[in-house]
């Protein structure tokens, strides 16, 4: 049951990010403190005003360390969100709900990771010792060890059922790269064509190198505050119109879901639109958690921008580029800007609403940001005044 108590009760008023790199040469704690400080400065809010923290459960930095090392005092709301990249939007869902409920006034959300120089998610050793739970125990002995390998089963099934092609996956990679090349903060600056994508080496068939997100070091942060405070910050507020999380069924281990060609986030999509009171045709740009290119295609289907199975043809011909019909990931995404676990997608949504993106969409008024169509999912709809 979704009601409308979240609508415009809170806004994102501060965004911050560190440099993104392959080797930060700094601790994750240092990265987290820099990004949070930068987001608070951006908002014009003092650290003493912060009374809530929402973190990813995978983040190495917790609220206790931030009280000691960043100097937060007397936090009254602390929560965390699960399942990896879902967190990019789920942290905003938690923050908006806490503010609407009156248990916090001003909340910081962050993600800090040395994912390239430290614990690399693309390496098997990161995962095989992780949890003796049944799902992992029933994959690793057969060499199914990494996210790329798990998510490739979904890509294959979408190809089987709908005839989606690797060149269509390539159209997603090319669009993200074009946006990254316009964004000086992005790690990947070399031009890419669909032929380049087709020539990139196979990682796990059907996924090629350029279908996979990059690995990065860095951090970013958001400041979310209640409506009356939001009107008194440095920038125009990015209002949280709607927010939703979803699980679907049989999520443990990801690949044992019932239908690998249909996005699990269909119910999250229905809920986020209902809570925001908008429809897909009202959305001016979309930020999609792009860990692997096929999930941009599947998300566009799940969130109602095209019919089921039509996502492959939909992304062709520049339609998802910033000057196309439905701009997607105008910062370059996980695929070409940096992999900070989906939080930069929300940062970019805020930039679009402020009019400060490096690939600005004309008259951007309503933005959807959504994550993960195979594991758990979360989505938020942001709007300007």
């Amino acid at each position, binding site marked *: 049951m979704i009601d409308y108590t979240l609508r415009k009760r809170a806004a994102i008023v501060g965004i911050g990010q560190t440099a993104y790199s392959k080797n930060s040469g700094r601790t994750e704690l240092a990265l987290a403190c820099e990004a949070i400080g930068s987001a608070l400065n951006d908002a014009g809010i003092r650290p003493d005003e912060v009374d809530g923290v929402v973190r990813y459960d995978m983040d190495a930095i917790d609220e206790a360390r931030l009280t000691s090392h960043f100097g937060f005092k007397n936090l009254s709301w602390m929560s965390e969100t699960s399942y990896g990249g879902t967190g990019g939007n789920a942290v905003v869902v938690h923050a908006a709900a806490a503010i609407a409920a009156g248990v916090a006034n001003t909340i910081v959300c962050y993600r800090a990771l040395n994912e390239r120089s430290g614990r690399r998610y693309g390496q*098997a050793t990161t995962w*095989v010792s992780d949890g003796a739970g049944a799902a992992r*125990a*029933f994959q690793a*002995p*057969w060499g199914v060890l990494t996210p790329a390998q798990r998510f490739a*089963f979904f890509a294959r099934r979408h190809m*089987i059922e709908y005839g989606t092609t690797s060149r269509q996956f390539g159209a997603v990679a090319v669009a993200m790269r074009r946006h990254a090349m316009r964004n000086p903060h992005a790690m990947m600056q070399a031009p890419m064509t669909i032929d380049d994508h087709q020539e990139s080496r196979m*990682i796990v068939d059907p996924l090629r190198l350029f279908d996979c997100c990059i690995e990065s070091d860095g951090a970013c942060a958001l400041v979310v505050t209640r409506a009356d405070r939001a009107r008194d910050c440095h920038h125009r507020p990015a209002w949280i119109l709607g927010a939703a999380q979803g699980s679907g069924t049989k999520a443990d281990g990801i690949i044992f879901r019932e239908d*690998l060609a249909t996005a699990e986030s269909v119910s999250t999509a229905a809920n986020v639109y209902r809570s925001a009171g908008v429809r897909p045709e009202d959305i001016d740009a979309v930020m999609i958690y792009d860990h692997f290119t096929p999930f941009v295609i599947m998300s566009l289907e799940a969130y109602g921008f095209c019919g089921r199975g039509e996502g492959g043809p939909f992304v062709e011909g520049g339609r998802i580029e910033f000057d196309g019909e439905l701009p997607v990931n105008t910062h370059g995404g996980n695929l070409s800007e940096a992999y900070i676990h989906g939080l930069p997608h929300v940062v970019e949504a805020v930039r679009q609403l402020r009019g400060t993106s490096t690939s600005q969409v004309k008259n951007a008024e309503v933005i959807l940001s959504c994550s993960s169509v195979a594991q758990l999912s979360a989505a938020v709809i942001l709007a300007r005044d």
Partner: protein
Amino acid sequence: MLHGLPEPIPDLDTQPFWDGCKERRFLVPHCEVCDTPRWPPGPCCPNCQSQATKWLEAEPRGSVYSWIVVTHSVHQATHNQVPYIAALVELGSGIRVIGNIVECDPADMAAGMPVDLIFEQTESGAFLPNFRPST
């Protein structure tokens, strides 16, 4: 079969499955109350929440639902074993399980392809279920 990968990790909820493998039987937990099969094995029926469990042997054949061909090795043990095929195989019991497809050229893989269950012994003596194309 792949060599040198992490060995199976049995626990109280999955031990009967691994015991079945030693006898070359693929045992699937089903609910005693409503007959719903569970995969991966777990202690509780996701349909009726009963924990009463019966272990039923699956027919030794299935069909390919989806598959991957791992060409880029991400584990020391597989550096000399790529490419290898891992598939989600639908068993008659209404569940989908992971197995390697052996004795098969990756180019011959197809959705719905019938496969036969085999058991292969790992270095530590455990038995792993795998599949090969039906003859």
